[in-house]
Protein backbone atom coordinates (compact mmCIF):
# COMPACT_ATOMS: atom_id res chain seq x y z
CA UNK A 1 0.00 0.00 0.00
CA UNK A 2 1.58 3.26 -1.15
CA UNK A 3 1.03 6.07 1.36
CA UNK A 4 1.86 9.77 1.23
CA UNK A 5 3.16 10.98 4.60
CA UNK A 6 4.24 14.50 3.69
CA UNK A 7 3.79 16.87 0.77
CA UNK A 8 6.29 19.49 -0.34
CA UNK A 9 4.55 22.48 -1.93
CA UNK A 10 7.06 24.05 -4.29
CA UNK A 11 7.17 27.73 -5.32
CA UNK A 12 5.64 26.75 -8.68
CA UNK A 13 2.73 25.28 -6.66
CA UNK A 14 3.65 21.79 -7.79
CA UNK A 15 3.48 19.22 -5.02
CA UNK A 16 6.08 16.54 -4.29
CA UNK A 17 4.62 13.64 -2.31
CA UNK A 18 6.93 11.88 0.15
CA UNK A 19 5.78 8.27 0.07
CA UNK A 20 6.27 4.98 1.84
CA UNK A 21 5.34 1.46 0.83
CA UNK A 22 3.52 -0.35 3.62
CA UNK A 23 3.49 -4.16 3.83
CA UNK A 24 1.24 -5.89 6.35
CA UNK A 25 -0.33 -9.31 6.97
CA UNK A 26 -3.15 -10.25 4.67
CA UNK A 27 -6.55 -9.16 5.99
CA UNK A 28 -5.10 -6.84 8.62
CA UNK A 29 -5.78 -3.55 6.85
CA UNK A 30 -7.20 -1.13 9.40
CA UNK A 31 -5.66 -3.02 12.34
CA UNK A 32 -2.16 -1.59 12.09
CA UNK A 33 -2.10 -0.29 15.64
CA UNK A 34 -2.33 -3.85 16.96
CA UNK A 35 0.78 -4.89 15.02
CA UNK A 36 4.39 -4.04 15.69
CA UNK A 37 6.11 -1.98 13.03
CA UNK A 38 9.53 -1.87 11.39
CA UNK A 39 10.68 1.08 9.25
CA UNK A 40 13.38 0.92 6.59
CA UNK A 41 14.67 4.44 5.82
CA UNK A 42 16.80 5.55 2.89
CA UNK A 43 17.85 8.54 0.85
CA UNK A 44 18.18 11.15 3.61
CA UNK A 45 21.30 12.21 1.70
CA UNK A 46 20.42 12.54 -1.96
CA UNK A 47 23.82 11.25 -3.13
CA UNK A 48 23.53 7.93 -1.26
CA UNK A 49 21.81 5.40 -3.48
CA UNK A 50 22.81 2.02 -2.03
CA UNK A 51 19.74 2.12 0.21
CA UNK A 52 17.40 2.50 -2.75
CA UNK A 53 18.64 -0.83 -4.11
CA UNK A 54 18.06 -2.46 -0.70
CA UNK A 55 14.52 -1.02 -0.64
CA UNK A 56 13.88 -2.42 -4.12
CA UNK A 57 15.17 -5.88 -3.22
CA UNK A 58 13.27 -6.06 0.05
CA UNK A 59 10.01 -4.77 -1.44
CA UNK A 60 10.38 -7.36 -4.18
CA UNK A 61 10.91 -10.14 -1.59
CA UNK A 62 7.88 -9.05 0.47
CA UNK A 63 5.68 -8.91 -2.63
CA UNK A 64 6.68 -12.47 -3.47
CA UNK A 65 6.11 -13.70 0.10
CA UNK A 66 2.97 -11.95 1.37
CA UNK A 67 1.94 -14.85 3.60
CA UNK A 68 5.17 -14.70 5.57
CA UNK A 69 4.44 -11.15 6.83
CA UNK A 70 3.49 -10.96 10.52
CA UNK A 71 3.91 -7.23 11.26
CA UNK A 72 3.85 -3.84 9.54
CA UNK A 73 6.93 -3.18 7.40
CA UNK A 74 7.26 0.37 6.07
CA UNK A 75 9.78 1.15 3.32
CA UNK A 76 10.82 4.79 2.81
CA UNK A 77 13.12 4.79 -0.23
CA UNK A 78 13.67 8.52 -0.44
CA UNK A 79 13.44 10.86 2.55
CA UNK A 80 15.03 13.69 0.51
CA UNK A 81 13.40 13.27 -2.93
CA UNK A 82 14.60 16.62 -4.34
CA UNK A 83 18.16 15.65 -3.39
CA UNK A 84 17.84 12.17 -4.93
CA UNK A 85 16.45 13.65 -8.15
CA UNK A 86 19.30 16.15 -8.35
CA UNK A 87 22.11 13.85 -7.10
CA UNK A 88 22.66 16.36 -4.31
CA UNK A 89 23.57 15.29 -0.79
CA UNK A 90 21.77 18.18 0.88
CA UNK A 91 18.24 19.53 0.49
CA UNK A 92 18.44 21.57 -2.73
CA UNK A 93 17.63 25.29 -2.53
CA UNK A 94 18.18 25.28 1.24
CA UNK A 95 21.65 23.67 1.01
CA UNK A 96 21.35 22.08 4.45
CA UNK A 97 22.05 18.54 5.58
CA UNK A 98 18.66 17.01 6.39
CA UNK A 99 20.39 14.66 8.84
CA UNK A 100 21.41 17.66 10.96
CA UNK A 101 17.85 19.01 11.24
CA UNK A 102 16.29 16.55 13.67
CA UNK A 103 14.00 16.48 15.58
CA UNK A 104 12.79 19.21 13.20
CA UNK A 105 10.11 21.84 13.64
CA UNK A 106 6.63 21.88 12.14
CA UNK A 107 6.81 25.71 11.98
CA UNK A 108 10.40 25.88 10.71
CA UNK A 109 11.95 25.98 7.24
CA UNK A 110 11.09 23.25 4.75
CA UNK A 111 13.97 20.93 5.81
CA UNK A 112 12.92 21.35 9.46
CA UNK A 113 9.34 20.50 8.49
CA UNK A 114 10.56 17.42 6.55
CA UNK A 115 12.55 16.28 9.59
CA UNK A 116 9.59 16.81 11.89
CA UNK A 117 7.26 14.90 9.55
CA UNK A 118 9.76 12.02 9.28
CA UNK A 119 9.91 11.60 13.04
CA UNK A 120 6.12 11.76 13.24
CA UNK A 121 5.74 9.12 10.48
CA UNK A 122 8.29 6.68 11.92
CA UNK A 123 7.45 7.08 15.63
CA UNK A 124 5.59 4.08 16.95
CA UNK A 125 7.90 1.68 15.09
CA UNK A 126 9.68 -0.75 17.37
CA UNK A 127 12.70 -0.97 15.02
CA UNK A 128 14.10 1.33 12.33
CA UNK A 129 17.04 0.82 9.99
CA UNK A 130 18.55 4.02 8.54
CA UNK A 131 20.47 3.16 5.37
CA UNK A 132 23.48 5.27 4.38
CA UNK A 133 26.06 4.93 1.63
CA UNK A 134 29.00 6.93 2.99
CA UNK A 135 29.56 9.77 0.49
CA UNK A 136 31.21 10.11 -2.90
CA UNK A 137 34.68 10.17 -1.30
CA UNK A 138 34.84 7.00 0.79
CA UNK A 139 33.86 3.38 0.27
CA UNK A 140 32.65 1.41 3.29
CA UNK A 141 32.17 -2.31 3.88
CA UNK A 142 28.66 -3.15 5.16
CA UNK A 143 28.65 -1.99 8.76
CA UNK A 144 26.43 -0.79 11.58
CA UNK A 145 27.37 2.26 13.66
CA UNK A 146 26.15 2.54 17.24
CA UNK A 147 26.89 5.09 19.92
CA UNK A 148 28.03 3.44 23.13
CA UNK A 149 25.11 4.89 25.09
CA UNK A 150 22.75 2.68 23.06
CA UNK A 151 25.09 -0.31 22.68
CA UNK A 152 23.33 -2.60 25.15
CA UNK A 153 19.98 -2.41 23.35
CA UNK A 154 21.26 -2.11 19.76
CA UNK A 155 24.26 -4.44 19.58
CA UNK A 156 22.20 -7.68 19.73
CA UNK A 157 20.02 -6.31 16.91
CA UNK A 158 23.04 -5.20 14.85
CA UNK A 159 24.50 -8.70 14.96
CA UNK A 160 21.43 -10.01 13.12
CA UNK A 161 22.00 -7.79 10.07
CA UNK A 162 24.64 -9.87 8.27
CA UNK A 163 27.15 -6.99 8.23
CA UNK A 164 30.92 -7.44 8.39
CA UNK A 165 31.58 -4.85 11.04
CA UNK A 166 29.90 -3.07 13.96
CA UNK A 167 31.52 0.17 15.10
CA UNK A 168 30.60 1.26 18.62
CA UNK A 169 31.79 4.85 19.04
CA UNK A 170 31.93 7.04 22.16
CA UNK A 171 28.87 9.10 23.10
CA UNK A 172 30.93 12.28 23.13
CA UNK A 173 31.07 12.26 19.33
CA UNK A 174 27.33 11.62 18.92
CA UNK A 175 25.56 14.10 16.69
CA UNK A 176 22.33 14.91 18.48
CA UNK A 177 20.67 16.42 15.44
CA UNK A 178 20.54 13.15 13.46
CA UNK A 179 17.49 11.06 12.66
CA UNK A 180 18.94 7.99 14.40
CA UNK A 181 19.68 9.86 17.63
CA UNK A 182 16.18 11.35 17.66
CA UNK A 183 14.46 8.02 17.01
CA UNK A 184 16.51 6.19 19.64
CA UNK A 185 15.64 8.92 22.13
CA UNK A 186 11.90 8.33 21.61
CA UNK A 187 12.18 4.56 21.95
CA UNK A 188 12.52 3.43 18.32
CA UNK A 189 15.51 1.06 18.29
CA UNK A 190 17.35 2.50 15.29
CA UNK A 191 20.36 1.04 13.54
CA UNK A 192 22.50 3.14 11.20
CA UNK A 193 23.93 1.12 8.32
CA UNK A 194 26.81 2.44 6.23
CA UNK A 195 27.92 0.60 3.12
CA UNK A 196 29.25 1.14 -0.37
CA UNK A 197 29.94 4.56 -1.85
CA UNK A 198 27.93 7.61 -2.89
CA UNK A 199 26.26 7.88 -6.32
CA UNK A 200 26.72 4.16 -6.97
CA UNK A 201 24.96 0.89 -6.24
CA UNK A 202 27.02 -2.10 -5.09
CA UNK A 203 24.64 -5.07 -5.52
CA UNK A 204 26.89 -7.52 -3.67
CA UNK A 205 26.70 -5.34 -0.53
CA UNK A 206 22.99 -4.67 -0.99
CA UNK A 207 22.18 -8.36 -1.36
CA UNK A 208 24.24 -9.14 1.75
CA UNK A 209 22.24 -6.61 3.76
CA UNK A 210 18.87 -7.76 2.38
CA UNK A 211 19.66 -11.26 3.71
CA UNK A 212 20.41 -9.66 7.07
CA UNK A 213 17.20 -7.64 7.06
CA UNK A 214 15.15 -10.77 6.30
CA UNK A 215 16.98 -12.61 9.08
CA UNK A 216 16.36 -9.75 11.53
CA UNK A 217 12.67 -9.55 10.60
CA UNK A 218 12.25 -13.31 11.09
CA UNK A 219 14.10 -13.17 14.42
CA UNK A 220 11.98 -10.24 15.67
CA UNK A 221 8.66 -11.74 14.52
CA UNK A 222 7.95 -9.54 11.48
CA UNK A 223 8.27 -12.54 9.15
CA UNK A 224 7.50 -16.20 9.56
CA UNK A 225 9.95 -18.23 7.45
CA UNK A 226 10.82 -21.91 7.50
CA UNK A 227 14.46 -21.25 6.87
CA UNK A 228 15.56 -17.61 7.19
CA UNK A 229 18.95 -16.76 5.67
CA UNK A 230 22.06 -17.52 7.72
CA UNK A 231 24.08 -14.49 8.84
CA UNK A 232 27.76 -13.89 9.47
CA UNK A 233 29.25 -12.87 12.82
CA UNK A 234 30.50 -9.27 12.54
CA UNK A 235 33.72 -7.86 13.94
CA UNK A 236 32.70 -5.55 16.78
CA UNK A 237 34.94 -2.61 17.54
CA UNK A 238 35.11 0.04 20.21
CA UNK A 239 36.42 3.42 19.13
CA UNK A 240 39.89 3.12 20.68
CA UNK A 241 40.65 0.46 18.09
CA UNK A 242 39.76 2.62 15.09
CA UNK A 243 42.55 4.61 13.41
CA UNK A 244 41.89 7.49 11.00
CA UNK A 245 44.44 7.97 8.21
CA UNK A 246 44.37 11.46 6.65
CA UNK A 247 46.28 12.81 3.65
CA UNK A 248 49.36 14.79 4.62
CA UNK A 249 49.38 16.64 1.29
CA UNK A 250 47.20 17.33 -1.74
CA UNK A 251 47.40 15.22 -4.88
CA UNK A 252 46.10 12.09 -6.54
CA UNK A 253 45.48 9.07 -4.28
CA UNK A 254 46.28 5.66 -5.72
CA UNK A 255 45.08 2.82 -3.47
CA UNK A 256 47.57 0.07 -2.75
CA UNK A 257 45.46 -2.27 -0.61
CA UNK A 258 42.17 -4.14 -0.93
CA UNK A 259 39.15 -2.51 0.64
CA UNK A 260 37.58 -4.72 3.29
CA UNK A 261 40.63 -6.91 3.64
CA UNK A 262 43.08 -7.51 6.48
CA UNK A 263 46.12 -5.26 6.53
CA UNK A 264 49.35 -5.54 8.50
CA UNK A 265 51.01 -2.80 10.50
CA UNK A 266 53.19 -0.63 8.21
CA UNK A 267 51.68 -2.18 5.10
CA UNK A 268 50.96 0.32 2.33
CA UNK A 269 47.36 1.60 2.11
CA UNK A 270 48.14 3.77 -0.89
CA UNK A 271 50.18 6.57 -2.29
CA UNK A 272 49.57 10.24 -3.01
CA UNK A 273 51.25 11.25 -6.26
CA UNK A 274 51.75 14.41 -8.27
CA UNK A 275 50.45 14.31 -11.86
CA UNK A 276 52.61 17.39 -12.53
CA UNK A 277 56.04 16.18 -11.44
CA UNK A 278 55.57 12.43 -11.74
CA UNK A 279 56.71 12.07 -8.15
CA UNK A 280 55.27 10.18 -5.22
CA UNK A 281 54.40 12.73 -2.55
CA UNK A 282 53.37 10.54 0.37
CA UNK A 283 53.09 6.84 1.13
CA UNK A 284 50.30 6.06 3.59
CA UNK A 285 50.78 3.00 5.79
CA UNK A 286 48.54 1.16 8.20
CA UNK A 287 49.19 2.14 11.83
CA UNK A 288 48.12 -1.32 13.04
CA UNK A 289 47.30 -4.91 12.11
CA UNK A 290 43.62 -4.79 11.35
CA UNK A 291 40.66 -4.46 9.03
CA UNK A 292 40.71 -1.82 6.30
CA UNK A 293 37.01 -1.01 6.53
CA UNK A 294 37.05 2.47 4.94
CA UNK A 295 39.04 3.35 1.83
CA UNK A 296 39.18 6.49 -0.30
CA UNK A 297 37.13 6.04 -3.49
CA UNK A 298 37.48 9.56 -4.89
CA UNK A 299 41.08 9.94 -6.05
CA UNK A 300 41.55 13.69 -5.52
CA UNK A 301 42.74 14.52 -2.01
CA UNK A 302 43.44 17.77 -0.22
CA UNK A 303 45.75 17.99 2.77
CA UNK A 304 43.66 16.52 5.57
CA UNK A 305 41.27 14.46 3.41
CA UNK A 306 40.31 11.18 5.04
CA UNK A 307 41.94 8.34 3.11
CA UNK A 308 41.21 5.27 5.22
CA UNK A 309 40.07 3.86 8.54
CA UNK A 310 41.60 0.76 10.05
CA UNK A 311 40.11 -1.22 12.91
CA UNK A 312 42.95 -2.80 14.89
CA UNK A 313 42.53 -6.53 15.45
CA UNK A 314 44.45 -8.80 17.75
CA UNK A 315 46.03 -11.91 16.37
Amino acid at each position, binding site marked *: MLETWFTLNL*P*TREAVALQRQRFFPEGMEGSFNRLKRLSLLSGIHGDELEGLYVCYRLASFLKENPRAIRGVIDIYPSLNPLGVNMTRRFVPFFEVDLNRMFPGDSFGS*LPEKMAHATVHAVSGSSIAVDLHASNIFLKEIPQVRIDEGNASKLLPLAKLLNVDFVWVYPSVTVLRSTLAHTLNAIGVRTLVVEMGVGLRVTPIFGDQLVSGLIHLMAHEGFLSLDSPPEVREPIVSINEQVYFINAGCSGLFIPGADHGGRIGKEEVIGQIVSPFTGEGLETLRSPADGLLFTLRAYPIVFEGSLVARVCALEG
Partner: protein
Amino acid sequence: MVREILVQMTSPAGYPIRVVGFRFGEGRPKVAIVGGLRGDEVHQSYVVARLCAFLRREAERNHGMIQGEILLVPLVNTFGFNVGYRFWPPDATDIDRMFPGFRFGETTQILAHSLFEKLKDADFGVHVTSLDPRQEHMALTTMYRSGLGNIEAGSHFGTHFLYVKDPKPFDTGSLLYNWQVWDVCALGLVGGKPSDIQQDLALEQTTAILRFLSKVGVLKLRVPERFSPVLLEEADLLLIRNGHPGLFLPLKAPGCGVFEGETLGWVRDTLTGEPLEELQSPALGTVFFRYARPAIFEEEVAFGVATR
Protein backbone atom coordinates in the same frame (compact mmCIF):
# COMPACT_ATOMS: atom_id res chain seq x y z
CA MET B 1 50.66 47.81 6.35
CA VAL B 2 52.16 44.37 6.17
CA ARG B 3 50.66 41.76 3.89
CA GLU B 4 50.92 38.28 5.35
CA ILE B 5 50.00 34.82 4.20
CA LEU B 6 48.19 33.43 7.23
CA VAL B 7 47.32 30.00 5.80
CA GLN B 8 48.48 28.26 2.67
CA MET B 9 47.74 24.90 1.16
CA THR B 10 48.41 23.45 -2.24
CA SER B 11 45.40 22.29 -4.21
CA PRO B 12 45.46 18.94 -6.03
CA ALA B 13 45.44 20.89 -9.32
CA GLY B 14 48.75 22.42 -8.30
CA TYR B 15 47.90 26.05 -7.53
CA PRO B 16 48.09 27.42 -3.98
CA ILE B 17 45.06 28.37 -1.91
CA ARG B 18 45.89 31.18 0.51
CA VAL B 19 44.31 33.15 3.30
CA VAL B 20 45.83 36.63 3.31
CA GLY B 21 45.91 39.06 6.22
CA PHE B 22 46.83 42.76 6.43
CA ARG B 23 48.48 43.93 9.62
CA PHE B 24 48.50 47.58 10.68
CA GLY B 25 50.57 48.78 13.65
CA GLU B 26 51.79 46.70 16.56
CA GLY B 27 51.28 46.25 20.27
CA ARG B 28 48.09 46.39 22.32
CA PRO B 29 45.20 46.50 22.07
CA LYS B 30 45.06 44.02 19.23
CA VAL B 31 41.92 43.80 17.11
CA ALA B 32 41.30 41.04 14.56
CA ILE B 33 38.59 41.65 11.94
CA VAL B 34 37.53 38.73 9.77
CA GLY B 35 35.17 38.52 6.77
CA GLY B 36 34.37 35.92 4.13
CA LEU B 37 34.46 32.73 6.14
CA ARG B 38 31.82 31.74 3.58
CA GLY B 39 32.58 31.99 -0.13
CA ASP B 40 29.28 33.78 -0.82
CA GLU B 41 29.73 36.47 1.87
CA VAL B 42 30.83 38.92 -0.79
CA HIS B 43 29.26 41.97 0.83
CA GLN B 44 30.79 41.09 4.20
CA SER B 45 34.20 40.58 2.60
CA TYR B 46 33.86 43.93 0.83
CA VAL B 47 33.23 45.70 4.17
CA VAL B 48 36.63 44.48 5.45
CA ALA B 49 38.34 45.20 2.12
CA ARG B 50 37.09 48.82 2.14
CA LEU B 51 38.36 49.15 5.70
CA CYS B 52 41.74 47.89 4.48
CA ALA B 53 41.85 50.51 1.72
CA PHE B 54 40.87 53.29 4.14
CA LEU B 55 43.43 52.33 6.78
CA ARG B 56 46.26 51.98 4.25
CA ARG B 57 45.60 55.42 2.79
CA GLU B 58 45.04 57.17 6.12
CA ALA B 59 47.95 55.45 7.90
CA GLU B 60 50.34 56.69 5.19
CA ARG B 61 49.56 60.33 5.84
CA ASN B 62 48.92 60.10 9.60
CA HIS B 63 51.65 58.02 11.20
CA GLY B 64 50.35 58.20 14.77
CA MET B 65 46.82 57.15 13.83
CA ILE B 66 47.11 53.48 14.79
CA GLN B 67 47.94 52.89 18.45
CA GLY B 68 47.95 49.14 18.76
CA GLU B 69 47.49 46.43 16.16
CA ILE B 70 44.75 45.75 13.62
CA LEU B 71 44.75 42.47 11.70
CA LEU B 72 42.33 42.40 8.76
CA VAL B 73 41.34 39.15 7.06
CA PRO B 74 38.91 40.14 4.29
CA LEU B 75 38.36 36.67 2.84
CA VAL B 76 38.99 33.20 4.28
CA ASN B 77 37.11 30.87 1.92
CA THR B 78 38.92 32.08 -1.18
CA PHE B 79 38.30 28.75 -2.91
CA GLY B 80 34.51 29.08 -2.45
CA PHE B 81 34.57 32.76 -3.42
CA ASN B 82 36.37 32.05 -6.68
CA VAL B 83 33.82 29.43 -7.74
CA GLY B 84 30.73 31.14 -6.26
CA TYR B 85 30.06 28.66 -3.46
CA ARG B 86 29.25 29.32 0.20
CA PHE B 87 31.05 26.32 1.70
CA TRP B 88 34.43 24.67 1.14
CA PRO B 89 33.84 23.37 -2.39
CA PRO B 90 35.30 19.85 -2.31
CA ASP B 91 33.37 18.59 0.72
CA ALA B 92 30.72 21.29 1.40
CA THR B 93 31.88 21.87 4.97
CA ASP B 94 31.22 25.24 6.62
CA ILE B 95 34.52 26.77 7.81
CA ASP B 96 32.54 28.71 10.44
CA ARG B 97 31.58 25.42 12.07
CA MET B 98 35.16 24.12 12.26
CA PHE B 99 36.74 26.28 14.98
CA PRO B 100 38.97 25.99 16.93
CA GLY B 101 40.09 23.48 14.29
CA PHE B 102 42.30 20.43 14.53
CA ARG B 103 45.87 20.17 13.25
CA PHE B 104 45.49 16.47 12.36
CA GLY B 105 41.88 16.60 11.16
CA GLU B 106 40.15 17.06 7.82
CA THR B 107 41.03 19.89 5.42
CA THR B 108 38.79 22.61 6.85
CA GLN B 109 39.67 21.60 10.42
CA ILE B 110 43.34 22.14 9.52
CA LEU B 111 42.51 25.45 7.83
CA ALA B 112 40.47 26.63 10.86
CA HIS B 113 43.26 25.55 13.22
CA SER B 114 45.98 27.39 11.27
CA LEU B 115 43.87 30.54 11.08
CA PHE B 116 42.73 30.47 14.70
CA GLU B 117 46.36 30.25 15.84
CA LYS B 118 46.80 33.73 14.28
CA LEU B 119 43.57 35.14 15.72
CA LYS B 120 43.22 33.80 19.24
CA ASP B 121 45.54 36.20 21.04
CA ALA B 122 43.53 39.29 20.00
CA ASP B 123 41.91 41.51 22.64
CA PHE B 124 38.92 42.13 20.39
CA GLY B 125 37.57 39.93 17.57
CA VAL B 126 35.10 41.21 14.99
CA HIS B 127 33.44 38.78 12.59
CA VAL B 128 31.70 40.46 9.65
CA THR B 129 29.14 37.87 8.61
CA SER B 130 25.60 36.93 7.59
CA LEU B 131 23.10 35.24 9.93
CA ASP B 132 21.17 33.24 7.34
CA PRO B 133 22.03 33.04 3.62
CA ARG B 134 18.35 33.32 2.72
CA GLN B 135 17.82 36.55 4.67
CA GLU B 136 18.83 40.18 4.20
CA HIS B 137 19.52 42.07 7.43
CA MET B 138 19.85 45.70 8.44
CA ALA B 139 23.24 46.65 9.91
CA LEU B 140 23.47 45.32 13.47
CA THR B 141 25.93 44.07 16.05
CA THR B 142 25.60 40.54 17.45
CA MET B 143 27.00 38.73 20.44
CA TYR B 144 26.36 35.55 22.39
CA ARG B 145 24.54 35.83 25.69
CA SER B 146 27.52 34.17 27.41
CA GLY B 147 29.58 37.22 26.38
CA LEU B 148 27.22 39.73 27.95
CA GLY B 149 30.15 41.33 29.78
CA ASN B 150 31.03 42.82 26.39
CA ILE B 151 27.89 44.90 25.95
CA GLU B 152 29.79 48.15 26.26
CA ALA B 153 32.24 47.11 23.53
CA GLY B 154 29.30 45.96 21.39
CA SER B 155 27.69 49.37 21.65
CA HIS B 156 30.82 51.07 20.27
CA PHE B 157 29.80 50.26 16.68
CA GLY B 158 26.78 52.53 17.00
CA THR B 159 24.42 50.25 15.09
CA HIS B 160 20.69 50.60 15.73
CA PHE B 161 20.48 47.18 17.44
CA LEU B 162 22.76 44.99 19.54
CA TYR B 163 21.32 41.51 19.07
CA VAL B 164 22.00 38.98 21.84
CA LYS B 165 21.88 35.34 20.69
CA ASP B 166 21.72 32.11 22.64
CA PRO B 167 24.25 29.73 21.09
CA LYS B 168 22.76 26.58 19.55
CA PRO B 169 24.73 23.31 19.61
CA PHE B 170 26.10 23.86 16.07
CA ASP B 171 27.29 27.37 17.02
CA THR B 172 30.03 25.92 19.20
CA GLY B 173 32.18 25.51 16.07
CA SER B 174 31.86 29.17 15.07
CA LEU B 175 34.70 31.70 15.17
CA LEU B 176 32.71 34.05 17.41
CA TYR B 177 31.98 31.34 19.98
CA ASN B 178 35.58 30.13 20.09
CA TRP B 179 37.01 33.62 20.37
CA GLN B 180 34.85 33.98 23.44
CA VAL B 181 36.11 30.68 24.86
CA TRP B 182 39.65 32.07 24.43
CA ASP B 183 38.67 35.24 26.36
CA VAL B 184 38.65 37.45 23.29
CA CYS B 185 35.94 40.14 23.36
CA ALA B 186 34.00 38.70 20.40
CA LEU B 187 31.47 40.67 18.37
CA GLY B 188 29.65 40.02 15.12
CA LEU B 189 28.77 42.66 12.56
CA VAL B 190 25.84 41.61 10.39
CA GLY B 191 24.19 43.33 7.44
CA GLY B 192 23.09 42.83 3.84
CA LYS B 193 22.83 39.46 2.17
CA PRO B 194 25.35 37.08 0.62
CA SER B 195 26.26 37.18 -3.08
CA ASP B 196 25.39 40.87 -3.44
CA ILE B 197 27.27 44.07 -2.58
CA GLN B 198 25.21 46.93 -1.17
CA GLN B 199 27.53 49.95 -1.37
CA ASP B 200 25.74 52.30 1.03
CA LEU B 201 25.27 49.62 3.65
CA ALA B 202 28.90 48.51 3.28
CA LEU B 203 30.17 52.05 3.93
CA GLU B 204 27.84 52.33 6.93
CA GLN B 205 29.33 49.10 8.32
CA THR B 206 32.92 50.09 7.53
CA THR B 207 32.31 53.37 9.36
CA ALA B 208 30.80 51.41 12.27
CA ILE B 209 34.05 49.43 12.53
CA LEU B 210 36.11 52.66 12.43
CA ARG B 211 33.88 54.01 15.24
CA PHE B 212 34.53 50.82 17.21
CA LEU B 213 38.31 50.97 16.61
CA SER B 214 38.37 54.58 17.72
CA LYS B 215 36.42 53.86 20.92
CA VAL B 216 38.55 50.89 21.98
CA GLY B 217 41.60 53.10 21.56
CA VAL B 218 43.40 51.46 18.65
CA LEU B 219 42.64 54.26 16.20
CA LYS B 220 43.14 57.97 16.73
CA LEU B 221 40.36 59.21 14.52
CA ARG B 222 37.22 61.25 15.08
CA VAL B 223 34.26 59.24 13.81
CA PRO B 224 30.75 60.80 13.94
CA GLU B 225 28.44 59.31 16.56
CA ARG B 226 25.45 57.23 15.50
CA PHE B 227 23.04 55.22 17.63
CA SER B 228 23.20 54.19 21.23
CA PRO B 229 22.15 50.61 20.43
CA VAL B 230 18.90 49.03 21.55
CA LEU B 231 19.48 45.61 23.13
CA LEU B 232 17.42 43.03 21.25
CA GLU B 233 16.71 39.34 21.86
CA GLU B 234 15.00 36.68 19.77
CA ALA B 235 11.78 37.13 21.77
CA ASP B 236 11.63 40.78 20.64
CA LEU B 237 11.27 39.73 17.00
CA LEU B 238 7.88 39.18 15.38
CA LEU B 239 8.14 36.66 12.55
CA ILE B 240 5.81 37.12 9.57
CA ARG B 241 5.21 33.94 7.57
CA ASN B 242 3.64 33.54 4.14
CA GLY B 243 0.86 30.98 3.73
CA HIS B 244 1.33 30.36 0.01
CA PRO B 245 4.40 29.35 -2.00
CA GLY B 246 5.16 31.50 -5.04
CA LEU B 247 7.07 34.63 -6.00
CA PHE B 248 8.09 36.88 -3.11
CA LEU B 249 7.86 40.62 -3.83
CA PRO B 250 8.98 42.67 -0.83
CA LEU B 251 8.08 46.34 -0.48
CA LYS B 252 9.88 47.23 2.74
CA ALA B 253 13.64 47.04 3.14
CA PRO B 254 15.57 46.09 6.28
CA GLY B 255 15.91 49.10 8.58
CA CYS B 256 12.51 50.59 7.58
CA GLY B 257 10.18 51.75 10.32
CA VAL B 258 6.69 50.30 9.86
CA PHE B 259 3.23 50.81 11.38
CA GLU B 260 0.88 48.06 12.47
CA GLY B 261 -1.03 46.80 9.41
CA GLU B 262 1.44 48.29 6.95
CA THR B 263 2.03 46.27 3.79
CA LEU B 264 5.48 44.64 3.89
CA GLY B 265 5.26 42.71 0.64
CA TRP B 266 3.31 40.34 -1.56
CA VAL B 267 3.30 36.75 -2.71
CA ARG B 268 2.14 36.20 -6.27
CA ASP B 269 1.46 33.01 -8.19
CA THR B 270 4.63 32.02 -10.05
CA LEU B 271 2.81 31.11 -13.26
CA THR B 272 -0.33 33.26 -13.41
CA GLY B 273 1.08 36.34 -11.64
CA GLU B 274 -2.10 36.67 -9.56
CA PRO B 275 -1.64 38.07 -6.03
CA LEU B 276 -2.01 35.31 -3.46
CA GLU B 277 -1.23 37.11 -0.25
CA GLU B 278 -0.47 40.51 1.23
CA LEU B 279 2.03 40.39 4.09
CA GLN B 280 1.45 42.99 6.79
CA SER B 281 3.33 44.14 9.85
CA PRO B 282 1.58 42.93 12.99
CA ALA B 283 2.94 45.84 15.07
CA LEU B 284 4.76 49.15 15.11
CA GLY B 285 8.45 48.37 14.70
CA THR B 286 11.52 48.15 12.48
CA VAL B 287 12.08 45.66 9.64
CA PHE B 288 14.98 43.66 11.08
CA PHE B 289 15.35 41.27 8.16
CA ARG B 290 13.50 40.06 5.12
CA TYR B 291 13.59 36.93 2.98
CA ALA B 292 16.16 37.51 0.25
CA ARG B 293 15.19 35.31 -2.69
CA PRO B 294 12.49 35.65 -5.33
CA ALA B 295 11.09 32.09 -5.01
CA ILE B 296 9.51 31.25 -1.69
CA PHE B 297 8.20 28.00 -0.19
CA GLU B 298 5.05 27.97 1.92
CA GLU B 299 5.29 29.11 5.55
CA GLU B 300 8.74 30.61 5.22
CA VAL B 301 9.73 33.46 7.50
CA ALA B 302 9.28 36.36 5.07
CA PHE B 303 10.00 39.24 7.47
CA GLY B 304 11.27 39.77 10.99
CA VAL B 305 10.04 42.96 12.70
CA ALA B 306 11.83 44.24 15.80
CA THR B 307 9.43 45.75 18.30
CA ARG B 308 11.83 47.38 20.77
